[in-house]
Structures are given as structure tokens and as C-alpha cells.
């Protein structure tokens, strides 16, 4: 990437890239009094330490430390469209995405239909070689991440969630490398570990609700608030639900992006916004001149 950007012939020193560890290179950036601003995407723990250590030199910070994003399936949703859309959001980037929709909130009245629709849609999300355009879920980035996913799947089973698809171990035919099974748990309670912690892998928790108000309450009952989705046929209703979710972005009916729309979180999903005018303003300070 740096080779590519070098060709842009920027003024010297405008872009500098030092590859290194967060607790070495990152720590120096946070400590150094010549640096005015840190913009960071990563974990909650590191985000907190940047804010804490940056206070020494009055750093301004933009932090994006992940999410546990809810997808609210309203009871008027067309499942043949809504469930594939929900699974795209759950498994995007093999689940290794801060915006991944890893909690699916489904109406209790349609729970059996939802389970069937998930089972019907799963063949469209094959595990495979990431270089193959047909592949939907590739390997995890490292052995450490593979182990982490396995431990979350075990914890889900131990805490009483019911496995609908997937589970522990490698998928058949992918015993080498860091491939995991795309996994869907049903009958998950929102206070279970798999519904509260960011797993960063293709593990979806399906949680049932009785009423719209309860769905909103469950969606907001999270330390995170980065992204959310609302799936339903009545758009006015979907918009009304969207405005009650404490998340930096809420998409209605499909995963979508807009490069001018702000990106960032509520609560532990961070501070500040990226992209568009909000992203530029995050690097500006205001000066008033009075006469």
C-alpha cells in the first residue's frame, strides 16, 4: 500500500508509516508531545489506554473499538430476503468485522420459520479458499483468533445456547489453516457471553423477543453501539425503530455504506466519528476571532 501511495509524490513527511507493535510504536505516538491527535481502530482495552495515556499530553482521540451489533428482524419481514441479508451482516469478512451483525433478534411468534430460513440460507455461505470468488467465509486471521472462536463456541454450549448450525472444530476438508465452522446459536439469552462479547468470527446468536419494545431494549442492552440493522416491510415502522437504537449507524433492510455518512460508536464502541465532514471536523480545532 505504501509503495502505491509513494507514487502520489506527496510533500515529504506528510505520510509516514512505521510498522510495529502497539505497545512500542503506538505507545510512542501516544506519549510524544509533538502528536496532537490519535485516531485508532482496535480493541476496547487498547482504546482505553490510549485515552488514559494520551491525557498526559492532552491528546485528542478518535476511537473505534468494535461492536456487538444487533439485527432486529421485525415480524412483518419477508424471511426469504431478510434472513440472507442478516447472514451477510453476520458473516461479513468471515465475521472479522467491527460492524458484523452478530445478534439476530427475531420475533418469538415466527421463531420456527426463522430457524428454517437460516437452515435454507446456509448453503449460500460456503467455507472455502478465500481466493475463490464463490467463497463466503474464509479462514480466521491467526491461530490465536481460531482458538478464541473455539473457546466462545464452547462457552455458548456450556451456557445453554442451542447449536443450530456449525460448532467446534475445523469444517470438513479444511483441517489445515485457521478455518472455523460458520456457527449459528438459537435460544440465546442476551446476558450470555456469546451475546455480550465481540467474538470477531462467524458466530451468530439468535435471540427471541415478544414485542417491538422488547427488541429495542435487547438491542440497546449491550456495552457496544457501533452498528445495527432493522429488517421489515413497513418502512415507517422500521425507521421508527431505527431512531431508538443507540448505535452510530443503523441500516434498514440491507448492509449498505455511504462514504459521506459518519462512522463511529456509542458507549464502548468509541468516541468521535470518521468519514465525511464529521471525519474532517474530528481533526479541526475551533478558533474564534472577535472584533
Amino acid at each position, binding site marked *: *500500500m*505504501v*509503495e*502505491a*501511495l*509513494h*507514487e*502520489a*509524490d*506527496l*510533500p*515529504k*513527511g*506528510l*505520510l*509516514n*508509516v*512505521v*510498522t*510495529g*507493535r502497539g505497545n*512500542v*510504536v503506538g505507545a*510512542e*505516538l501516544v506519549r*510524544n508531545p*509533538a*502528536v496532537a491527535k490519535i485516531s485508532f481502530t482496535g480493541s476496547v482495552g487498547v482504546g482505553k489506554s490510549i485515552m488514559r495515556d494520551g491525557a498526559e499530553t492532552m491528546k485528542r482521540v478518535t476511537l473505534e473499538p468494535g461492536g456487538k451489533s444487533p439485527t432486529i428482524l421485525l415480524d412483518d419481514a419477508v424471511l426469504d430476503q431478510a434472513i440472507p441479508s442478516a447472514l451477510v451482516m453476520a458473516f*461479513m*469478512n*468471515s465475521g472479522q468485522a467491527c460492524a458484523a451483525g452478530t445478534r439476530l433478534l427475531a420475533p418469538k411468534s415466527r421463531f420456527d420459520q426463522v430457524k428454517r430460513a437460516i437452515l435454507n440460507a446456509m448453503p449460500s455461505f460456503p467455507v472455502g*479458499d*478465500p*481466493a*475463490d*470468488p464463490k*467463497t*463466503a467465509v*474464509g*479462514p*480466521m*486471521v*491467526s*491461530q490465536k483468533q481460531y482458538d478464541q472462536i473455539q473457546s466462545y463456541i464452547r462457552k455458548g454450549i456450556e451456557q445453554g445456547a442451542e447449536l443450530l448450525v456449525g460448532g467446534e472444530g475445523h469444517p470438513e476438508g479444511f483441517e*489445515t*489453516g*485457521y*478455518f472455523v465452522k460458520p456457527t449459528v446459536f438459537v435460544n440465546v439469552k442476551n446476558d450470555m457471553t456469546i451475546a455480550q462479547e465481540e467474538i470477531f468470527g462467524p458466530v451468530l446468536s439468535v435471540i427471541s423477543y415478544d414485542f417491538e419494545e422488547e427488541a429495542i431494549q435487547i438491542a440497546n442492552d449491550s456495552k457496544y453501539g457501533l452498528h445495527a440493522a432493522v429488517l421489515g416491510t413497513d418502512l415507517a415502522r422500521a425507521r421508527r425503530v431505527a431512531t431508538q437504537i443507540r448505535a452510530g449507524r443503523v441500516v434498514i433492510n440491507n448492509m449498505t*455504506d455511504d*462514504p*459521506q455518512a459518519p462512522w463511529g460508536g456509542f458507549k464502548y464502541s468509541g468516541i468521535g466519528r470518521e*468519514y*465525511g*465532514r464529521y*471525519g*474532517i*471536523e474530528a481533526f*479541526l480545532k475551533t478558533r474564534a476571532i*472577535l*472584533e
Partner: protein
Amino acid sequence: MKTATSNAEIKTLTSHYIDGSFVESHGREVMDIVKPTNGQVIGRVTLGDEEDTKRAIAAAKSAFATFGRSTKEERAKILRRLHEAASARVDDLTSAMVEEYGGIVQFAGLLVQSGIGAFLAAEQALQDLPLTRSWDSRPEYWSRRCTRPISRRVS
């Protein structure tokens, strides 16, 4: 220290990008880059240390002395040049994501496109963003309420 010559397919990166040039790392720690589909080492990267970081910060600080006074139009040009330079390497950037972290090719392609598009989106946002605002400070409002000169009220 591990050597880079044990396997011809292993790519080694030993430099950082500081002050417009690729410079040899002062830090000496070497990290393996492992291909997630098979666990094989495909690269070795020399990691920077505090000294490399300080050099980069010093370069940025000295660039800012003049760049800090650049106009919107100059910055817009820079963003367009970055877009053009990155666009020329879309395929390389996508295949690096597939190879190095196992990103699925369809999604990696979208991410690269959106990353590259971000330069033009930033240019658009910059053009649309008013950097100054002014309003009538209504001197008669203050003169009615201030019993002392304003310069003494503001301490």
C-alpha cells in the same frame, strides 16, 4: 535472528516510510507473516521501535510547518493524486488482503474499492465543508448590557 534466504517465496520487508523515503528499520525485532489458509510463513517484517517512531513524528512535524498553511485546493489535489496512485494498484492490494489475512476475494475487492474511494469522498467533504463562519456580533446588544468595556470583562 531468522533469515530471509531459507525460502525464496518468503517476502521480507525491512523498511519504514519516513519523510518521503523507504528507510531501513532501526528496530530489529522480526515478525513472521503467516498465511492463514495453511499456516505457512510467507513473509518476515522487521518491526519499528521508539526511534523509528520519533523519526516519523519529527518528519511529520516539519512537514506540518508548511503544509499546515496549505489551501483547500492544494489539499484537494493531494487527495486526487492519492486516489490515482492507489487506483493503479487495485489488484495488488486486493490479492495482498487475500494472501496475508485470508480475506475473501469478493469482500476484499469491495474494501479496497471503498478505501480508494475514500480519498475522493474526503475531497468532496472538504470542498463542501465551510472552514469559517461569521455572524453579526450585535454590538448594540452588548452595549446595552455591559457597564464596563468588553476588554475588561474578558479576563
